């Protein structure tokens, strides 16, 4: 069955994982660790006993039906949502209460939102330079050069002086990725980064994310893009009703889902 004699793990030939060079990635030390995390929204128990470890260089894709708690899970990692129980550590440091220490920790965690959330009153360039200038107090010329490089890298270099509203959704989201990368984060969180985009713009954003994954960025991606999960993820987390129901390699998860919930979910989204 194996396509390559030197490859010891059996791999279905239909998968294109080797395309993004994922085979070379060995999970590093634990970077983000969630232990027994619980969270309620009023009566709704939105996260139930979540245990999850994300290693350095790993790309973890979180999927599941809406309302399953996957966005909330993503947002607890930089404490945009406070948790009611359990613990979350980032690179060994426990997430502190709101304050200076939390702000410092957040600056190491890049966040990309479904609705982009670019600063509407700042130009594209200012959006990217603001964090390094105000939070890290880096030198303006260094930051500006890095910002231009990042904007070129995500393919919006020529839009640097425009305002967010003058850009397409796909361009805005790529700027948002550049803004997060400007802080040189240890881990990037993507909260449904393509869900608000027109279909023709989804790929340009996914392409930037694939490049990032290829370069070894640690990523947590909440998405409905199964193609991205197949091609770029090291691990797929399937959530339903506030729990992690299944956790597996993308090959195994998509070809052999173990739980009924996952089978049901996949049958609904993959065959239509």
């Amino acid at each position, binding site marked *: 069955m194996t396509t390559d004699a030197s490859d010891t793990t059996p791999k279905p030939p239909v998968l294109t994982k080797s395309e993004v060079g994922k085979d070379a990635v060995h999970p590093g030390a634990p970077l983000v660790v969630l232990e027994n995390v619980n969270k309620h929204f009023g009566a709704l128990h939105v996260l139930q006993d979540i245990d999850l470890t994300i290693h350095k260089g790993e790309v973890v894709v979180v999927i599941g039906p809406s309302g399953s708690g996957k966005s909330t899970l993503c947002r607890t990692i*930089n404490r*945009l949502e406070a948790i009611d129980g359990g613990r979350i550590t980032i690179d060994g440091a426990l997430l502190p209460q*709101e304050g*200076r220490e939390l*702000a*410092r*920790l*957040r*600056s*190491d*965690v*890049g*966040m990309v*939102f479904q*609705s982009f*959330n*670019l*600063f*509407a*009153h700042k130009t594209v360039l200012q959006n990217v330079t*603001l*964090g390094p200038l*105000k*939070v*890290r107090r880096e030198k303006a010329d260094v930051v500006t050069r890095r910002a231009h490089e990042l904007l070129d890298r995500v393919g919006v270099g020529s839009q640097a002086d425009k*305002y967010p*509203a*003058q850009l397409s959704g796909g361009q805005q989201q790529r700027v*948002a990725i550049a*803004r*997060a990368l400007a*802080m040189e984060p240890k881990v990037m969180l993507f909260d449904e980064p393509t869900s608000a985009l027109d279909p023709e713009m989804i790929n340009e954003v996914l392409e930037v994310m694939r490049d990032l994954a290829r370069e070894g960025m640690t990523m947590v991606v909440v998405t409905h893009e199964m193609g991205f999960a197949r091609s770029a993820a090291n691990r797929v987390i399937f959530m339903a009703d506030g729990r992690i129901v299944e956790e597996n390699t993308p090959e195994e998860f998509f070809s052999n889902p173990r739980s009924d919930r996952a089978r049901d979910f996949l049958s609904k989204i993959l065959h239509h």
Partner: protein
Amino acid sequence: MLEVIQDNWDLLRHGFVGTLKLTVVCGIVSLLLGTLIAACRVSPVPPLRWFGTAYVNLFRNTPLTLIFFAVALGFPKLRFNLSYFEFAVIALSTYTAAFICEAIRSGINTVPIGQAEAARSLGMSFTQSLSQIVLPQAGRAAVPPIGSLLIAMVRNSAIASAFNVTELMGTSAEMVENGYKSLWVLLWIAVGYLIITLSMSAALAALEKKLAVVR
């Protein structure tokens, strides 16, 4: 009609300058104080929020004349011996700030929550995200109500005349005593107020345009 202004030019000018001074000083103080209290009201620190709410509820719901009396009678008792003008500034500014605070807060509420979340995600402190991201975008929506409040403040400044402050309204009594027809006296005083309030409205309209944020 014209002799009122011809004969009393100096008096009217003094009154006008007095009202203008009250307007500028109280305007600046109440804008700064109002912004500070609005920051308290949206702060993540509960005691600051309580302070902000208590301030607004106290000063917004107390008649301005009562605040003038409290300041003018209370401060000397506490051995704060300031001029009548300074008393008037304190009374009028603390009162106006309570309303300005609420106008700014409603402006803050028009800024999508994602803007502050993105700022926090970059590692910005509460003060940074408020001053860099939220307030600059809140300004536009807050300008029209702030305009109304500042105009109300100019009109409220007339109360200061009862507390020995030279200002426009206070000059009327003197002119009427000197035998001028109160109708014409009050007409010119109204013109004085209109000059101040209308030029303020124009400035605020320009500011509103400048603060426009395209989404």
